[in-house]
């Protein structure tokens, strides 16, 4: 219904003449934007999003290795408590609640931003720990990239942009990998990873046009991935594999009207995930139709936004008794007051699921501006609706589940200094968050299968520290370093039998200490970058995982002739050949090499 109304609105406005281009892709984050971090996109042009995040941020990417599943955990959140957005719309799989970042090429996104901390009031369910926000902008650049690396890793992509009034760009990418890397066991025996091969194909079409007061953009994104599931270190046989097919359509309209900015984002997303052993074991198909409408008025000292989110979800599976549906609708608003010294935000959100209320979500934030030091404070409520699998999976699905619901607060301070060719930014954030009705799949007495229940309470708290500095010594030489350290304690506040946990135990797969350091040296056309990552030990389902530290060396030669740019990059990843695991029994690759050549015409 919202779609139809908005189309009529758009057609009615078509004849008007004034043109105002509004950036179709911005993140509607709160005043608390100092925690907003943009990924280092061009660091490694062949990365998938999981690799981009791992190389630039100190957040935990739960990665099964190679081209296998990779999901994001921010501030102790689970993968389904981390919102993933494409052009302002959530694309988390509605059945699983998560999104696999390993099959998203970073180069497909014009902007990708990682936001620490919840934006539940603005973006709704599932944004408990933070979010990843990806946006597209059609442009006329041409880009060709080809790489080859260890373990049969071939990755090629191309992008071409064209048009004047209607600007379009087409992107394609194909990667295949054997993943037959060696790994070493604790007794020194060396094995080769088996059944790790896979391939993925991505294609995207972006277009944008300004018609009168309307800025319209359309995006289509197809992903297909065919991946074997590698053996664990204690598995010697098997042929498990998955196939994923995703089709995503997105339409955006921006318009200046009555002194404010109107924006409509619409999306239709189809996910088909198949799991095979010797035969097709299960096929999960879900469709999501989403609409998001916002109207924002900005004045000298204040601004306000009103908005409406609507999504209609369907899910089908061999493990569902029938095709299941869910209709979510939410109204949200925010009011911001700004003066010379302070920014002050109040945000409110109320969501309905199939006409039932979910928790009312308020947020209040205040920021002190001016001077070298900025400080911000935020208090907000967070929530996550149960996934379709939580509700309808057979056996076990529990239609009586409540939304996970909690409160969080954080304080952030940032110091910036710039003098001549030297600049420095350092920030410190402290946060706390308590979530009740935490959903756990557990065994109920007298039952023969696991079932989700609102039985846990989790308290997450921690500190995030970053220190970035850059100095240009002369016209040829520039040094920079970015250091990020996160400390996160996320503990059970209720004892559990399955999983067997006591009060105070750290969540599974949640390292307490997470560190990332990027050191870069640029001399003329050459750049050397060294990335160090450290993660402390974490609890697996069966055993404790050892801490690990890895180092990646990236050497890049950049040649620029007018608008033509050629990058040649050579990577030595895991340079110390560290034997480590992120998921228990799933070894990661040791030292490996990769050569990439990218040509770009702007």
């Amino acid at each position, binding site marked *: 219904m919202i779609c139809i109304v908005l189309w009529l609105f758009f057609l009615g406005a078509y004849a008007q003449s004034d043109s105002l281009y509004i950036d179709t892709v911005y993140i509607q984050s709160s005043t608390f934007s100092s925690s907003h971090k943009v990924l280092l996109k061009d660091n490694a042009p062949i990365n998938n999003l999981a690799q981009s995040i791992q190389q630039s941020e100190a957040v935990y990417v739960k990665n099964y290795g190679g081209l296998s599943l990779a999901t994001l955990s921010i501030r102790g959140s689970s993968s389904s408590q981390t919102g993933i957005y494409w052009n302002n719309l959530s694309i988390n799989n509605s059945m699983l609640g998560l999104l696999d970042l390993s099959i998203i090429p970073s180069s497909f996104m014009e902007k990708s931003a990682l936001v620490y901390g919840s934006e539940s009031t603005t973006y709704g369910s599932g944004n408990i720990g933070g979010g990843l926000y990806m946006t597209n902008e059609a442009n006329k650049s041409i880009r060709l990239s080809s790489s080859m690396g260890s373990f049969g890793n071939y990755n090629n992509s191309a992008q071409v942009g064209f048009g004047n009034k209607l600007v379009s760009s087409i992107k394609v990418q194909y990667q295949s990998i054997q993943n037959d890397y060696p790994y070493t066991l604790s007794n020194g025996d060396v094995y080769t990873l088996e059944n790790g091969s896979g391939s993925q194909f991505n294609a995207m079409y972006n277009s944008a046009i300004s018609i009168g007061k309307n800025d319209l953009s359309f995006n289509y994104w197809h992903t297909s991935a065919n991946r074997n599931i590698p053996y664990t270190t*204690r*598995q010697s046989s*098997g042929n498990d594999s998955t196939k994923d097919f995703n089709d995503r359509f997105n339409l955006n309209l921006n318009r200046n009207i009555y002194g404010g900015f109107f924006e409509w984002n619409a999306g239709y997303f189809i996910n088909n995930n198949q799991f095979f*052993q010797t035969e097709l074991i299960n096929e999960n198909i879900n469709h999501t139709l989403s609409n998001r409408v916002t109207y924002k008025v900005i004045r000298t000292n204040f601004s306000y936004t009103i908005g409406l989110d609507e999504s209609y979800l369907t899910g089908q599976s061999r493990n569902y008794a029938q095709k299941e549906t869910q209709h979510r609708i939410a109204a949200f608003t925010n009011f911001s007051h700004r003066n010379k010294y302070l920014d002050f935000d109040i945000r409110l959100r109320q969501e309905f699921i199939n006409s039932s209320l979910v928790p009312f979500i308020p947020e209040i934030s205040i920021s002190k501006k001016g001077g070298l030091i900025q400080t911000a404070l935020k208090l907000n409520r967070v929530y996550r609706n149960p996934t379709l699998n939580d509700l309808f999976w057979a*056996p076990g699905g529990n239609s009586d589940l409540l939304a996970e619901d909690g409160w969080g607060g954080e304080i952030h301070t940032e110091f910036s200094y710039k003098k001549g060719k030297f600049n420095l930014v350092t920030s410190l954030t402290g946060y706390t968050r308590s979530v009740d009705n935490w959903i756990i799949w557990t065994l109920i007495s007298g039952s023969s299968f696991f079932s989700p229940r609102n039985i846990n309470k989790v308290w997450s708290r921690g500190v995030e520290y970053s220190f970035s500095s850059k100095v240009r010594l002369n016209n040829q030489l520039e040094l920079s370093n970015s250091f990020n350290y996160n400390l996160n304690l996320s503990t059970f506040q209720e004892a559990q039998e399955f*999983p067997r946990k006591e009060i105070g135990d750290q969540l599974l797969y949640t390292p307490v200490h997470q560190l990332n350091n990027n050191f870069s040296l640029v001399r003329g056309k050459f750049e050397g970058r060294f990335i160090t990552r450290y993660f402390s030990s974490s609890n697996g389902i069966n055993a404790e995982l050892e801490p690990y530290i890895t180092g990646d060396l990236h050497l890049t030669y950049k040649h620029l002739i007018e608008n033509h740019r050629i990058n040649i990059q050579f990577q030595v990843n895991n340079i110390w050949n560290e034997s480590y695991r992120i998921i228990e029994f799933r070894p990661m690759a040791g030292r490996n090499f990769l050569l990439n050549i990218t040509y770009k015409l702007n």
Partner: protein
Amino acid sequence: MKTFYTLLLCCLVGLAHSQATSFEGLNLPVDTFVNNAEGPGFTFNEDEGDEVFLPNSYNATYMSFSDFAISTMTDTETAGFTNQYSVISGSGANESLTYAVGFAGFGETYIKTPGGTIGGFYVNNTTYAALSMRDGDTFAKKFGGETGDDPDFFLMTIKYANEGIPTGDSINFYLADYRFEDNNLDYIVEDWTYIEITSGVSEIIISLSSSDNGAFGMNTPAYFAIDDMNVFFLNTKEQELLNANIFPNPVDNILNIEVEQSANVDIYSIEGTLVHSERVYGNAQLHIEHLFSGAYYVNITTETKAVTKKMIKK
């Protein structure tokens, strides 16, 4: 549906008789299974006092079961949950078609024989459990672990009970045992193996445990297969009790029979096999040197009376 196939081993007209309940009576076609019993479980031999009961919990919504299913599945190759109803040997005990698959993933299951005494049964691994232990899978470990040296085991514990009350006694049977210093001795049971129950109980409670455990419990698939249950029943409706005795017990090589009239003396192994038969005329001595050490049943019958005694051969 709830019929049973009874192999009468002895005493067709006696006071006691032994039955090997082999589940063939369901007449299942090959490569099929039944996981939804009518009622609380499968009852074999519906004659009053002769029932063998295997519980079954079936969830119609999820089409899942726990406790016991009856199967004729023959797939010994396919790994994984989808092949949960097959036995690793591909057929029932003694080359039969039908067997029972037990699932005790979340506690215990049981078998009871009201009015009878369980003498023993054959047990084997299911294909799902055996291949998971041999090769590992996404969730469970390959036994021996990454290096092959992990002292893994998959253990079936059988507790004895009478009328639902545990006696406190139990026996263990390793469905897989990798605890040997010499890895060549490590094994996963892949052939039907007879487990003897010597305590004269009417009920057994079966639980499984493994060395492979995580926060969500046991990782090894909690399945097992059983067949050819040997059960002894008293049948007081048909005959009077014969006044007879045997001694010494335990016995070395000569068994004294104390009986006041002519009688047939039949000795059965615990598996129900007739191993010695002799006609006596009053008190007599039987030479049983040829019998192996172990438990036996001595069935003494006259034209109108009978009695069954348990005998231990040293």
